[in-house]
């Protein structure tokens, strides 16, 4: 009986974790580790692991984005508490899921590859100059504003940085390798 109760409780927590991660509760998607801990208890990472196994057949997984950018070798409790947890698609199976036109995605890919190769930041002027090789000025400005608004890029004075959404959604190593591997 106790075993059955424990299992029911675990199932309830997995459902709760799924809803917290899949449904946007704040201005930005995802939840912080401390929110999950508060809702699921001290062993919340175990619940996240079970949820990950449930999401796997659907082509989704839970991604943890750490405050310091890169994943620590052995994440501590405080690293996890401040990290943001997202549900992401492992491999998108349908093409039109972003609402961005193909030329906008091209501009985004170029801007991100440029920033990633420069440790995640570069002057906005340089990124604009790069994009203007292939797109008109008005479109470049509009696109950069749009990418900043969506969280793919972040801006501070005259500098552009890799934004929170890029850290959650884009594999920087794969992006650069694929780019250089293109014939």
């Amino acid at each position, binding site marked *: 009986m106790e075993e059955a109760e424990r299992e029911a409780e675990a199932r309830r927590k997995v459902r709760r974790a799924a809803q917290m*991660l*899949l*449904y*946007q509760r704040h201005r930005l*998607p*995802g939840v912080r580790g401390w929110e999950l801990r508060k809702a699921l208890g001290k062993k919340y990472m175990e619940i996240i692991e079970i949820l990950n196994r449930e999401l796997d057949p659907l082509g*989704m997984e839970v*991604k943890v984005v750490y405050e310091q950018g890169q994943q620590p070798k052995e994440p501590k409790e405080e690293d996890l508490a401040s990290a943001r947890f*997202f*549900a*992401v*698609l*492992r*491999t*998108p199976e349908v*093409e039109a*899921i*972003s609402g961005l036109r*193909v*030329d906008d*995605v*091209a*501009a*985004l*890919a*170029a801007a*991100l*590859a*440029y920033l*990633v*190769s*420069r*440790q995640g*930041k*570069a*002057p906005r002027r340089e990124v604009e100059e*790069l994009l203007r*090789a*292939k797109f008109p000025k008005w479109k470049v400005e509009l696109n950069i504003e749009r990418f900043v608004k969506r969280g793919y890029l972040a801006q501070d*004075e*005259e*500098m552009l940085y890799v934004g929170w*959404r890029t850290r*959650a*959604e*884009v*594999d*920087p*190593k*794969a*992006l*650069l390798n*694929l*780019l*250089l591997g*293109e014939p």
Partner: protein
Amino acid sequence: MKAKVDPEELLRIIELCRAVERRGVDPFQVDVGRSIEKLRRYLPRWRLPEELLLDAEALNRIAAIVRLQGDWLKHRASSLYIDPILVELKIRMLEPERLASVFFRSWHPVVALEQLSEKRLEEGLDYWNSLLPLTERLREEAPSGGELGLLTREDLVNLRTFSEVEFKDLLKKVLGELRAMAKGGKVSYKEFIYRGTFAETVERAYLTSFLVTDGYVELDVKPLEEEIFLRPLERPIPMAERTKVYSVALALDNRGG
């Protein structure tokens, strides 16, 4: 005899470090060893607190550059490092469609859905029901109407917009008190400001701030001792003659005198 050193030298070091930090360029462009050597050579010649502060700021900026150099080396040694020039060339060469395809293959979009729950909808309806119509809310918020007319000085005094006592007279009175307490020297800010009631304390702090701004009183802040002193001056120093102008925020607590 030692040659005079201009603090401009420190400002130049600070500005160079800031520019490298801000623009994300190669941090090894800063010759850290030479800059540190300069700071070491100049340190004994600084006399003024402002010069020592600049020296500390320069050292802090150089430390930030050393950290950036460490990050730069780590990045170069990591598997993520690819020559930025090579990446830029490739971006310029590829067709937009190919670039988009590269992005899609390294992209794992966040799944974020939005849905209204029954409970939330109920809360919204409750809010709607409890909200007064806009016309009624505007009527409540609008000032009560009446005939237009002129206000006399007495009316303004009654409304507490004007004071019976001229502001300048109040300043003069506070300055007199301060001079009497300081006896040609300085007096603790707290000792001078705190009065019997909080209202009196706030009024005194407010008036004193004008005396400081107008140059009648000098504010002497000792950050290490966490003490502030007021020093009344013989003649006010005009703004143009002041070497350094800055603002200080001072908190008052609601205690008696």
